[in-house]
């Protein structure tokens, strides 16, 4: 059973369907104690970081999301929530990862970064990417991105390189949508389920 923290993102049902295709049940939970006591947590999110953060504050979920010891996976805006700050709405975030999420700026490239792009591994000892070759394509839709840092497991180039997969201790996060990234996305979710 995977717990999905209720960040209000519109991709929640897609994540639940993707887990279901792997034979894994999930539950959408907005209660801090239940999230704390669950075995695995997904932090989803689509929309704006500021909206998701407001919702976390309203539901009083900030503290619990910082205290988790179980495997936790942030997806898209859910990944951004785990960083310090986002330029999107100039909002302070949870701060598991010590960096700022910034707007993708380019005069030549279209923004949002929308579509399938390659993710290249910077580390190969992360269990989340087990059995996924470097350079596989995943589905991205975003206008803001986290920089590459010590916690970067996989990076993607769109103008500049940005973090596509990050890990610090029990916290994992992906910028792309594994729930919409075909076979390789399913493999990543399967790896998370097996952690």
């Amino acid at each position, binding site marked *: 059973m995977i717990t999905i923290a209720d960040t209000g993102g*519109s*991709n*929640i*049902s897609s994540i639940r369907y993707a887990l279901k295709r792997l034979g894994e049940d999930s539950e959408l939970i907005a209660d801090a104690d239940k999230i704390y006591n669950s075995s695995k947590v997904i932090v989803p999110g689509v929309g704006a970081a500021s909206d998701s953060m407001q919702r976390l504050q309203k539901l009083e979920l900030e503290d619990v999301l910082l205290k988790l010891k179980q495997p936790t996976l942030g997806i898209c805006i859910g990944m951004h929530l785990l960083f310090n700050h986002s330029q999107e709405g100039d909002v302070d975030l949870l701060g598991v990862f010590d960096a700022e999420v910034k707007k993708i700026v380019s005069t030549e490239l279209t923004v*949002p970064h929308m579509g399938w*792009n390659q993710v290249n591994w910077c580390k190969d000892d992360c269990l989340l990417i087990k059995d996924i070759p470097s350079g596989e394509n995943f589905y991205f839709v*975003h206008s803001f991105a986290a920089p590459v840092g010590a916690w970067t497991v996989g990076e993607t180039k769109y103008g500049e390189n940005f973090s596509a997969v990050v890990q610090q201790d029990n916290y994992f996060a992906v910028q792309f949508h594994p729930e919409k990234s*075909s076979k390789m996305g399913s493999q990543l979710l399967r790896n998370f389920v097996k952690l």
Partner: protein
Amino acid sequence: MLTKRIIPCLDVKDGQVVKGTKFRNHEVLGDISELALKYSEQGADELVFYDITASSDQRTVDAKWVKDIAQLIDIPFCVAGGIISVDKARFILNSGADKISINSPALEHPNLISEMAKAFGSQCVVVGVDSIWHKDDYYVYKYTGDEAKTENSKWRTLDWVKQVQALGAGEVVLNCMSSDGTRDGFDVKQLKLVRELLNIPLVASGGAGKVEHFSDVFQKTNVDAALAAGIFHRNEVSVQQVKEHLSENGLPVR
């Protein structure tokens, strides 16, 4: 490198996939789920479902099949058809669609684009533009799902696409009506004009008849994606064959 997307479009009418020529005389091509799964397995990068009669019939797309599709496939998909309010868009997105596309409702109420972008983020909001040359310029048409109700919106296409981008659209699908269903190739000339004006992704639509048309549109216009229906539904070419052809021509594909 961001790959060029190939997007089969499933025009949905009364719960089945249909295809007409120049938006008219629709023939039934098959079941929605069956075709969605087929294209997903062929390597489609995304799917678009247009409930082509929803806007002209003043009803909203039936979300039951949206949920069915979301449970079935593991690639992104967009739903269009009579999505006339933020609440209806939310319902479709919560049913599992990744994006919603608005066309006639955006022409009726342009602020709907900014309201939806604010509620869900620009990345969820696609604006479909049905465009054709009329007398002196390209113009946007509305209610194209029904021949009797189709009318010129009076918006010049180049003005309208700039407007939708300013209002917060995350992507534009340009349906070039004069090439739609002709199998003579995408409307490169018109797509080029629109591409130059936009910073958001642009999807080419209308006219694909052979694999060369896809390489042609990507090489000549720098569009982000190409959408096609009949060529795939009639099994003339598979998505995989299009991608092999693009790859052979040095274009990045998944």
